């Protein structure tokens, strides 16, 4: 009840307080609640600290030393003094904690019907990809009034996705996924910052969120989907890391491997055949016929296609023909991607690979 009254009162002063405290606009569904708590906390903090300073100054003015040898009076405050000193702050701190905790739980619980957008942070840019195709660098378009869930990961170091106007922030850790959700409430364009220090270009790792009216957004998304195929060639928007493209490349690689006859000698189920199996090949440590051990990486796979006998895996004969000239560069890359996709789940998953991911429903 008390909380309710408090929030109501705060709402009345909301705009005024927001300007006074220099806060950005409240553009997400949780922003107003967070701000109300913020005003409450900061108001109490300011009043108490100025109060303490004033009391100290007044006490100094009143009880100045009146000349040599004078001493103060011995005061033994009752137990009530200590009780107030403990319970007063404790009351406020716990109140803030409970309100803040409830808000945090809300922030951490995305609704089931949230639209998903994949976010990739890398030095020093943001990439956004929508589930069915379009992607963008630097600008995230979201509909107003619909919950949006961002699934985020980083390519290199820790970044942090921060939208001040939404009062939202979440660290993006390489090799892990993090999620953040919001519902934009006001159309407009809002700043995005990287809030976790990530190197020379940290301060330039900015972006923008464009909140559009729902119908405008749908229109925009449809446009983007139509233009997606042609935009893939557009070098201005690099799509190499976009999850969708990756999946396409894998499929393409699978098709090519069948067409070029790779499966005559290489299995994908772990059985050794004429050649080593592709299952779990990527980043496997293979022993070569020369006795060395090698980490199977992209260069090695590519080399083995072009010059198969150069580094033979121990136990296999030099029977594979060269594919030099028989595969174009993109085709080679696609097959490498396909091999990379055949990772044994027991084995390594490159952290920065796009998600093999199922939306979590709660």
């Amino acid at each position, binding site marked *: 009840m008390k909380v309710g009254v408090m929030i109501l009162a705060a709402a009345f002063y909301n705009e005024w307080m927001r300007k006074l405290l220099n806060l950005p606009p409240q553009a997400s569904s949780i922003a107003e609640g967070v701000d109300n708590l913020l005003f409450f906390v900061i108001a109490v903090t300011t009043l108490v600290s100025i109060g303490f300073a004033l009391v100290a100054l007044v006490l100094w003015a009143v009880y100045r030393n009146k000349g040599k040898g004078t001493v*103060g009076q011995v005061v033994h405050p009752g137990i009530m003094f200590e009780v107030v000193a403990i319970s007063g702050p404790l009351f406020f701190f716990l109140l803030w904690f409970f309100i803040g905790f409830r808000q945090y739980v809300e922030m951490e619980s995305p609704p089931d019907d949230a639209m998903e957008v994949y976010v990739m942070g890398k030095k020093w840019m943001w990439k956004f990809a929508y589930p069915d195709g379009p992607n963008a660098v630097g600008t995230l378009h979201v509909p107003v009034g619909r919950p949006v869930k961002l699934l985020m990961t980083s390519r290199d170091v820790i970044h942090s996705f921060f939208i001040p106007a939404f009062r939202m922030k979440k660290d993006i850790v390489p090799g892990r996924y993090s999620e953040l959700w919001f519902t934009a409430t006001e159309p407009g364009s809002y700043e995005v910052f990287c809030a*976790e220090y990530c190197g020379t270009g940290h301060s330039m790792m900015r972006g923008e969120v464009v909140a559009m009216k729902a119908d405008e957004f749908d229109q925009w998304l449809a446009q983007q989907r139509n233009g997606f195929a042609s935009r893939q060639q557009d070098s201005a928007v690099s799509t190499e890391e976009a999850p969708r493209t990756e999946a396409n490349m894998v499929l393409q690689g699978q098709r090519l491997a069948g067409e070029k006859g790779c499966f005559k000698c290489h299995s994908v189920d772990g059985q050794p055949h004429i050649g080593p199996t592709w299952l779990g090949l990527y980043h496997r440590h293979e022993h070569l016929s020369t006795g060395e051990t090698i980490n199977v990486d992209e260069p090695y796979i590519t080399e083995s296609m072009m010059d198969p006998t150069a580094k033979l895996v121990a136990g296999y004969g030099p029977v594979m023909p060269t594919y030099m000239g028989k595969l174009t560069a993109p085709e080679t890359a696609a097959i490498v991607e396909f091999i990379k996709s055949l990772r044994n789940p027991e084995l390594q998953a490159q952290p920065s690979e796009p998600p093999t991911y199922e939306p979590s429903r709660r």
Partner: protein
Amino acid sequence: MSLAAVEEEPRHPEGAEPDYIRGKSGVMSWVLTLDHKRIALLYLGTVTLTFFLGGVFALALRTELLVPENGVMDAMTYNRMFTLHGVTMVFFFMIPAIPGVFGNFFLPIMIGAHDVAFPRLNLASYYLYLAAVCLGLWGMIHGGTDTGWTFYTPYSTTTTTTVLPILAAAFVNGFSSILTGVNFIVTIHTLRADGMHWMRLPLFIWALYGTSVIQVLATPVIGITLALCAVEHFLGTGIFDPARGGDPILFQHLFWFYSHPAVYIMVLPAFGVASELVGAFTRKPLVGYRMIALSTFGIAFVGFLAWGHHLFTSGQSAVDAGVFGFLSMLIGVFTAIKMFNWVGSMYKASIVMAAPFIYTLGFFFLTVFGGMTGVALATISLDVHWQDTYFVVAHFHFIMAGAVVMMFLGALHYWFPKMFGKLYTEGPAMVGAVLVILGFIGTFTPQFFLGNEGMPRRYYSYPAHFQWLHVTSTIFAYILFLGLLLVLINLIVALANGKQAPNNPWGAPQYEWDIPSPPTEHNFPATPVINRDPYEYRGQEIIENAN
């Protein structure tokens, strides 16, 4: 320690032990000294140097931030600069400052001991500290590093800058800190004079005790963490590297397990000094001695359990965030207890106004506001907005830097006559104190507003709408620097030309004012007996300070 005895006998008869400064001469008598007071002065010299160095870095940063883009340095230089500012101030200034200088000097005197328990270990910790500073400087000369003082992985393990010497410096400094802590705890336990019960310990000693416990139990964790980070750098062990199966979040847990309590390593001694200053300048016994002493241990203990609030936005679950958020709130209560008792002590007091007390008043404001914004930051949903913004920067400068700098300077003025046997000039000292306090508040208050608006920390360039607040902050930073210069000059002048200080120029009740200024080499002619409480006022004459 009865007053009657003191006044009857001449305390310092001719031919008795000379004071610790003039007792011995020559360079070797200083560099190999085992006297805790001389070691304290060695610390004072080094700490002043690192404070100055960190201050110069800070001014360079503030100057760069006058303009949104491309100021006086490039982004790489800026990034190194803020890292070095942080490393220097945290590891080389704030952690050793008050325990190293005033702890070393006054801990044995206040408990009636002739020295610390392990004088050689004490010198060793100073040299470890000095070695750390030298390593750090060497790293800085070779380009410095750009990881931030938090050394977050995987950035710190992949950066091409010279991060290793800086990590090594922090590691070595940790050992200095641990050994000092061990030394202090043992001293407090075993060398208290007869009659010095636990409840007669000055509050500064209680604070040092709490600090030392944290130093001993938390510092090793950062040592091993930084060592892991360094090994990762050249062996690629991958403990914190996601590409090899490690987890960068683990680094953050281990790092903050030390670095959150480290905040209390820095501020608890400052709280201790505040108790001494309030006790001396209110000219009446402190209110709530027991509560202040006990709350020190509350802070020390709960401080260990709150580290997770630095990870609220790292993907922490609501469950863990709830636990850490709740525990963080309790620390604020313990600090509040101290604050109520200090301000309560001014009631019906007879307050002597002097530079140290002005610092104390500044400390009150900075600590209350800084501390309560800390509670605000620990409020989970608000932290989501404020984390890694200038709000955090402003908050920890208020509570950490503010409290430490205020009380370092306060203590320096307060104990100056005892340490050097000279009186400083009160006028310029008061002006300096006011300038420092105003400069400090003026520098960091705009940063709270910057943080509210969403300005992230460690930004070299920023959108133009943040500029006016940055300019305001920078102007006050210069005022702060001027204030500090004035303080420095005033104290140097006093050192050269100050009048001879009497034993107790403040008329303070604490034990350390009973012995000569400066003290003799072994502090007391014989092991003293303590027969009164630390803030028990005995009606000393106030001997007016110069001017």
